[in-house]
C-alpha cells in the first residue's frame, strides 16, 4: 500500500510517499527555519502563509521523486493534531481536497504517533516498547504493548525538554534553535555549575523542567551582579547533564518496571548527541533490551513518519 503523507503542524511543510509503512519512496521537507531564525521562534501567521505557498510544490516534488502519479497512491495521510491550528489546516485542507478529487480515503494522524513510528523505519518493534517522546512541545513516556496502543505513563508538568533548551539558549544568548546549539556547547564544557536534577520522587514518571529554567536564570543574574564571567560551555554542559540524567533515569526505570524489550526515542530532541550517548551506555547494561533512535532526518518534523503511522493506524482499525 502506498500512502501520500502530509505534515504541516509547525515549522515544516513536508510531503512523503511511503510504501507499506517501511519503504520511503520520497520525503520532501521544505524547511521554514531560515525565515523563523530571525524572529527567534515560530511565527504562526508566517508559518501558515508559507505552508500555503509551498504545499502544492512539495506535493508535486514528492510524486516526482517517487516517480509515481497520484493515481498509484492508495491513501492520503495528514497530521491532524496537535499543532498550530493555522498551519495544521493547510495540510488538512490539501489532504481533503486530494482525497475528494481522486476519491481516496484520508487518514488523520496524531503527530506524536508519527514521531514514535519514525523509529519503525530503523527497526521493527519488539513489544512491549517504551517510547521517550522529547520535542519542543512534548515530554512523555509512552508504553506500547502493541501497534497503535499508547499508554502515557509520564509527562511534563510544566516545560517540555525542547522548550527548556530554547529558553535556556535565549537566557545565555546563544541563538535559536537552542537544542543543537546547547548540545554542541555541552560537548566542549564541563558540568561545573550545580543545577537541580528534578526527579519528583522515586516512583514518578512525570517530568518538571521549569525549576531548572529558573535555576539557570538565577545563576546568570547572580554572576552578573557579582561581575563574574559566565562560562557558557560549562553552563551548557551542566544544564544538559541535569536534563539527560533525569530523562535517562526515568526511561531505564520504566523499562525495568514494565519489562520493555525495546526503547525508542522520538521527537526533535532525539537528535541530541548527548542523549544518544547516555542512553546507549545505560541500555548496554541491560539484558535483552534494544535501543533505537530515528535517523537524524526523521527526528525533526517530516511526513515520512506520518506515512508510517498511518499505515499501522489503517491496519489496526481493520
Amino acid at each position: 500500500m502506498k500512502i501520500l503523507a502530509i505534515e504541516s503542524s509547525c515549522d515544516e511543510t513536508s510531503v512523503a510517499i511511503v510504501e507499506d509503512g517501511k519503504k520511503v519512496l520520497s520525503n520532501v521537507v521544505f524547511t521554514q527555519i531560515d525565515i523563523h531564525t530571525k524572529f527567534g521562534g515560530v511565527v504562526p501567521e508566517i508559518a501558515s502563509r508559507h505552508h500555503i505557498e509551498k504545499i502544492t510544490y512539495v506535493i508535486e516534488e514528492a510524486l516526482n521523486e517517487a516517480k509515481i502519479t497520484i493515481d498509484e497512491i492508495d491513501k492520503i495521510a495528514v497530521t491532524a493534531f496537535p499543532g498550530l491550528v493555522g498551519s495544521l489546516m493547510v495540510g488538512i485542507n490539501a489532504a481533503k481536497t486530494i482525497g475528494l478529487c481522486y476519491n481516496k480515503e484520508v487518514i488523520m494522524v496524531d503527530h506524536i504517533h508519527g514521531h514514535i513510528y519514525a523509529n519503525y523505519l530503523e527497526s521493527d518493534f519488539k513489544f512491549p516498547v517504551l517510547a521517550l517522546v522529547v520535542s519542543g512541545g512534548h515530554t512523555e513516556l509512552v508504553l506500547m504493548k502493541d501497534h497503535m496502543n499508547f499508554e502515557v505513563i509520564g509527562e511534563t508538568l510544566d516545560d517540555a525538554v525542547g522548550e527548556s533548551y530554547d529558553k535556556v539558549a535565549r537566557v545565555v544568548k546563544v541563538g535559536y534553535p537552542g537544542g543543537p546549539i546547547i548540545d554542541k556547547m555541552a560537548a566542549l564544557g564541563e558540568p561545573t555549575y550545580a543545577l537541580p536534577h528534578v526527579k519528583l520522587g522515586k516512583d514518578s514518571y512525570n517530568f518538571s523542567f521549569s525549576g531548572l529554567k529558573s535555576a539557570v536564570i538565577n545563576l546568570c543574574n547572580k554572576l552578573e551582579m557579582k561581575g563574574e564571567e559566565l562560562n557558557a560551555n560549562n553552563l551548557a554542559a551542566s544544564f544538559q547533564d541535569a536534563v539527560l540524567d533525569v530523562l535517562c533515569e526515568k526511561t531505564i526505570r520504566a523499562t525495568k518496571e514494565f519489562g520493555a524489550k525495546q526503547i525508542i526515542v522520538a521527537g526533535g530532541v532525539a537528535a541530541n548527541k548527548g542523549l544518544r550517548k547516555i542512553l546507549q551506555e545505560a541500555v548496554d547494561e541491560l539484558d535483552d533490551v534494544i535501543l533505537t533512535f530515528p535517523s537524524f532526518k526523521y527526528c525533526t518534523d517530516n511526513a515520512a513518519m506520518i506515512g508510517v503511522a498511518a499505515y499501522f493506524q489503517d491496519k489496526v482499525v481493520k
Partner: protein
Amino acid sequence: MDKLNLIIKTEDQMIHLGELIGSICYPKIVFAMNGNLGAGKTTLTKGLGKALGIKRTINSPTFTIMKVYEGTMPLYHLDVYRIENSDSDFELEEYFDLDGVSVVEWADNISDLLPNNTIYLHFTINEVGNRLVEITSTDKEFMEKLESIVGEYLC
C-alpha cells in the same frame, strides 16, 4: 484603572493566588500576563485551572501556542512568546469571545488584540526571588472582589 500590588513568596502561594483569581472568574474574562521567563505565569495558570475544576495537567503552551482545558468553564491557555509581531490574521482574538476564561502569557506581543476590560498581570522577580505581581484593570467590580480576597498577599 484600578491597581493591586501583591508579593508572592513561594510556588505554592502562586498556585493559591491562581485559585483565588479563578474563584471569581466569569465567562469571556481575559487575563494578559507579562513578565520575564520563569516569573510564574504558567504556575499561576495551574492554580486558576484548579479553581475551574480542571483535573488534567496544565503545562506550558509555549510551543503549541494554545491549549484548551475543559472545566466548569473552558480554559483557553495561550502563550504568544513565539509570536513577535501580531498581524491579526492568526485569529487568536476569537478565543476572547468564547464563553470561557482566556489566559495569555507574553500578552504584550499581541497587545492590540486584547479586549478593553482585560485583567493585566505583570510579574517581576525581586533580588531575593520573590514574585511581585501587579494587577491592573478597568473592570472595577472584578478588582474590588479580588482585593477583598487577596489581603494576605497585598504589599
